[in-house]
């Protein structure tokens, strides 16, 4: 959950288009990693997590096509985590709520960025990625709170 909180902080702190795109790329990557640790057929969230992972990968690819996305640097490169990296106490529902919140923020920041972006390709990337983030939110937002 710390990872999601850190990602949210990066998104909140991003001020310009390259920073937002950079943070968005990493946010989608982080979602993939977190979801991977939570996909469990025994849980009721199984289908929603599986579908969310597809949307997260789609969102990442769309952001990757944005001309203003800066090259990766060591500071922003994702650190691979395994399922065990998440605290055992963090349940699927709690994770779903956290990811829903992150995806909502992501959609909001990308939609805002689409409005500022001067380059049409950047605008298209931001709009497309916001759509994928919204899709994740719609899949996970129905989870009952922890």
């Amino acid at each position: 959950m710390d990872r999601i909180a850190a990602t949210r902080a990066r998104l909140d702190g991003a001020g310009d288009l390259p920073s937002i795109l950079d943070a968005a790329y990493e946010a989608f990557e982080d979602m993939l990693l977190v979801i991977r640790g939570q996909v469990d057929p025994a849980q009721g969230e199984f289908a929603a997590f599986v579908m969310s992972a597809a949307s997260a990968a789609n969102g990442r690819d769309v952001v990757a096509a944005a001309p203003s996305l800066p090259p990766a640097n060591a500071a922003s490169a994702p650190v691979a985590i395994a399922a065990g990296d998440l605290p055992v106490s963090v349940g699927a529902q709690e994770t779903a709520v956290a990811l829903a919140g992150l995806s909502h923020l992501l959609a909001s920041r990308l939609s805002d960025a689409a409005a500022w972006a001067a380059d049409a390709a950047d605008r298209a990337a931001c709009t497309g990625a916001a759509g994928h983030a919204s899709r994740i939110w719609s899949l996970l937002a129905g989870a009952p709170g922890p």
Partner: protein
Amino acid sequence: VTSRATFGDFASAASSYLEQAIAQSEPVAVRQRAAARAVQTEEFTRSLRGVLEVMARYLGDITTPVTDVSVRDRRELAPWARAGIEAQEALQNAAAFLQPGGNGEDTGRSGQIREGAAADGGLKAAGALMAAGRDLLNTHLAVGADGARLDRSEWAPVITSTPVTRALLFELGLWARQIAPQGARLAISPGPAQRSSAEARRQLNAASQWLWVLHSAVQSAHRSDPVSAEDTRLLHAIPVNALPARRRPSGAETVTGLCHGIADSAERVRHAGRIAVPQASWSPRLTAESMRQAAACGTVISHHCEILLRSMAARAAQHGSGVVSARLLDSAGAAAHARTTWLHTARAWERITTDTRGSVSPAAAEAADLALWTGRLVYASPEWTLALGPSPAARAPEALAPSADDLPGIVAAVHHSCETLTQMAAADQRQICTAARAGRLLVPTRSLPDSFDIPHPFAPAPPDRIDLLVAAYQDTRTASAQATTAVAAIAAAVHAPSRVLTSARSAVHAGSVSFPADSQRALDKPAATPRRSADLPGPVERILHDLGVTSPAMLLRASGIDQAGEQLILEAAQAAGTQPAGPDSRDLSRSAGTAELINHMLASADPRTAILHPASTWELEAET
């Protein structure tokens, strides 16, 4: 399985009409009876001409035109190859006797005495139904610009498969057997004394005899290499090529309605996947979004299958079906394994992308529909979706299958789903291999190590990632096929309507028929023992029937006399056949009495009656 018209609907209706191929005459005075019979003969002949045209088209579809296969070479052919050739010849000969305007056709007279006979029997209707059945089969096939056959549906390779082609030829033989005795009976019944009428009746009788020859040829192949009831069922189950309309569950469906929705949705997924494969090298719809959605849906659908199978296992156990319950649990395990492999494939797609983005293919959209349909069957809530909501409770086993009779429908729904996942995995793997060869698989440059200096957002996918993806699909194909096989066995055990899927699959695996190419397998079984005609009494027995005799003992004696007479004729004919000028039934059918006897012998489909086959029209012309 489907609410669409099937070939069996038309074939069965045609057979029903053929039972009454001759219209029942209305009561008329004795002096008018012969004239009425003449009208019936004309109308029957006219309708038969149409039926033979349709049957010839069927044979043209499933056999290669006879050109230069000598009688000696035919002995080397496989039974069904020889039957196809002989059936074609028999049909051509029968049709030749019924050429319009030929000897004996007395046009224009029927209007004068129409009140004495019913206008039409069932033959005309049967011909129309046969034609409709052929049209139905042909909705699945097309011919390309180069003349090659194109498959328009998943049923196309089934239609051209060896088992179904044989079943169709067998069906033609049965139709011929239904028509022949009625035509012969009409031909040898008393008619007016005009010369033209007598000729017409002789020709109708000859045509009927050739239909018996057709039936006999097919029966001979059937005795050597039988057409199974399963093959006939499969032929009859072939539906018209009309894809079910796309629809999503409304929330008001019953369990049965959901099962039907799953079958329809599954068919749409298979259809969309089949179309996508040949377009993989260029289609803008082959996107990572599409493939990810399809893989995610495959994961979810196989998950649903597992839950349904476990639930049915519990229900079967409650009904006391321990064996079925155990098999359902095994199948559930197979479905769970398939789910794991689908999940690995979905994860492999997280590390790879495509050169086109932004659209979702029809196949992926249909897969999402199937995930929704199966989810609605699994979960009790009629508003269930893939998104999270209030904790989803699975449908209780007793709600899923209130009685044991409900089990086959649900097994069928799972069977359709598993079969579809198997085909989807195969289709997607083929698309990926094609896309990889076309250089369409990429990765975000950011995902590559720093040692790669690529000034573009995406780079060609490294071979190891492609290999992982292809391997993941291969595992998924294998696991999905194993789940399908397990569920298919249960479908067979509980007589689920989806059994036709298994039959179709095995028919396709048996290969498609090409009679000349398939013809090298020689007959290796002895000819079956001759049988007597079951549908036509011999002349002595018929006379007793006409006299109103019902005593089984007397009828048995009459039948014995008929058989003894036929045996004597056959022995005599075989002896005569070794002499330079052998007999043929044309010679032996000159009177109504002898024609009846020959007809009865031909109807027995006894291979030895080959020596009595009637002459063809060209043989008759050669003599004059």
